[in-house]
């Protein structure tokens, strides 16, 4: 991608800026527009309601109307807030969740950075989000915000451990940190996905199968906790904390938190897709190969990546409107007493099998 832009513009700086902005304008903004509407409609139909119906056909333009409203809102900053940190926090949170997209391969031809540290970079850079959330909670000078921020940070840090352990076991299996290489290894048909034991030989794959499925389940649960979705949404539990760390924010600053949240939802789904569900590879073989049109393949890959990612986001929405939220002690019990030991045992077993 970067090379192509470099050829067109002939300037490193312009090419790099455009390549860095592409995922935002081509992907995250349209995705957020659709996902917000999707969440409201899906939740409504699950509860036997209709959801937004007034703006456009079946409320299709509702999100755009909401954004127009948010842009017009007055930017309220309470007197006793810490102004500098208060204004910096939304930017930091959004920057942290956007940085993750640098290492995600959307298709064979479109990946922000082909750096070899891939998934390791993602795990590291998402900690900036934690700092931003703490900053927002503290600068708001509001006990609900501070409590929400504390809960959120504690939760994200705890659940990073099982995530990292599971990712480590898959990294051991595939021998690479780069999500692009991982996707390439899971090519051809869907039984080569890491979810089903990866592209190993028949017998080894059969041995690996139960453990990679467990790894996927652990990864998905802890990624839900990392984006503060139900059943792990005590940081913004409405009945206890108003709205958690972004209680004091209004207008566009609130919109930035909102956008970061939806970007995060897609980011964790995309990581799960790239690690376990074959990345951008088609499960059934490519149409472009069959009819001999080579240039079609990257677009097909983008299509499959989007379908798989949005599918996992739909599962997140489905879980949110089905399950009640956990208490704080239950949350920590799930992480430290169940997920981490299972992830450790899983890591050792996958390591032993991959020695065969």
């Amino acid at each position, binding site marked *: 991608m970067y090379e192509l832009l470099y050829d067109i513009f002939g300037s490193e*700086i312009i090419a790099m800026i455009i390549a860095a902005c592409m995922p935002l304008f081509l992907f995250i903004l349209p995705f957020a527009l659709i996902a917000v509407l999707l969440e409201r409609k899906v939740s409504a139909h699950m509860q036997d309601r209709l959801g937004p119906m007034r703006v456009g056909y079946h409320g299709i333009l509702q999100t755009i109307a909401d954004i127009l409203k948010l842009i017009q809102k007055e930017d309220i900053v309470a007197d006793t807030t810490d102004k500098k*940190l208060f204004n910096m926090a939304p930017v930091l949170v959004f920057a942290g969740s956007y940085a993750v997209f640098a290492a995600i391969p959307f298709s064979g031809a479109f990946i922000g950075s082909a750096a070899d*540290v891939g998934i*390791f970079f993602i795990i*590291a850079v998402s900690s900036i989000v*934690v700092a931003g959330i*703490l900053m927002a909670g503290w600068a708001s000078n509001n006990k609900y915000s501070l409590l929400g921020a504390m809960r959120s940070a504690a939760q994200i840090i705890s659940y990073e451990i099982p995530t990292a352990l599971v990712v480590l076991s898959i990294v051991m299996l595939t021998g690479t940190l780069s999500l692009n290489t991982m996707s390439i290894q899971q090519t051809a048909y869907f039984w080569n996905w890491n979810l089903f034991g990866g592209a190993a030989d028949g017998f080894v794959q059969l041995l690996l199968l139960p453990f990679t499925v467990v790894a996927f389940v652990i990864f998905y649960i802890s990624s839900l906790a990392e984006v503060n979705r139900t059943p792990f949404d005590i940081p913004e539990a409405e009945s206890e904390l108003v709205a958690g760390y972004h209680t004091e924010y209004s207008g566009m600053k609130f919109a930035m938190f909102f956008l970061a949240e939806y970007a995060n939802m897609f980011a964790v789904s995309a990581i799960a897709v790239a690690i376990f569900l074959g990345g951008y590879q088609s499960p059934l073989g490519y149409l472009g190969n069959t009819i001999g049109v080579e240039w079609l393949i990257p677009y097909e890959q983008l299509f499959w990546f989007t379908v798989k990612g949005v599918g996992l986001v739909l599962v997140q929405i489905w879980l949110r409107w089905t399950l009640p939220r956990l208490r704080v002690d239950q949350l920590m019990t799930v992480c430290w007493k169940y997920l981490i030991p299972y992830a450790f045992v899983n890591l050792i077993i996958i390591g032993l099998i991959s020695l065969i």
Partner: protein
Amino acid sequence: MSLYDIIFYLFALLVLVSAFITVTSKNIVHSAFSLMFTLFGVAGIYVLLGADFLGVVQLLVYVGGILILMIFGVMMTNEITNVDIKTGTTQVVPAIIGVGLFAGALTSMMLRTGWNSQPSENMDTTTYAIGKLLLTEYVLIFELLGMLLLVALIGAASVARKEKE
């Protein structure tokens, strides 16, 4: 001036300015957060030097681990956040001697080291080489560090544990 020079100066400016704020700010939470930007800028400079793995580790360990812990500590202890820290000048002479010695040591080290410079084309990834070295040449140190961290973890858990009667 190439793109990399511009990025280097941006990161260097970030490190210097935020380090200055860290030292001079009277608000301890502001200090803690600007220390985060310092550490982040250092990570950026590591990446510019071709040490991608080291840069990410810097981000993971310092920004994601130590700094969040520090901010947590600062926020949890209510007495600290409400107190203004003294930032006046005291003990001028010992400070000048100490800083002078440290700066002299750093400068002489900078001047005497034979810096090994090579063209920035063709950056190879460092992850593979680091992993291989850790498990062959430095395996003893690696294992000892692992033991040390385990002891620290168990020690922390046993200190924090509530005694059952």
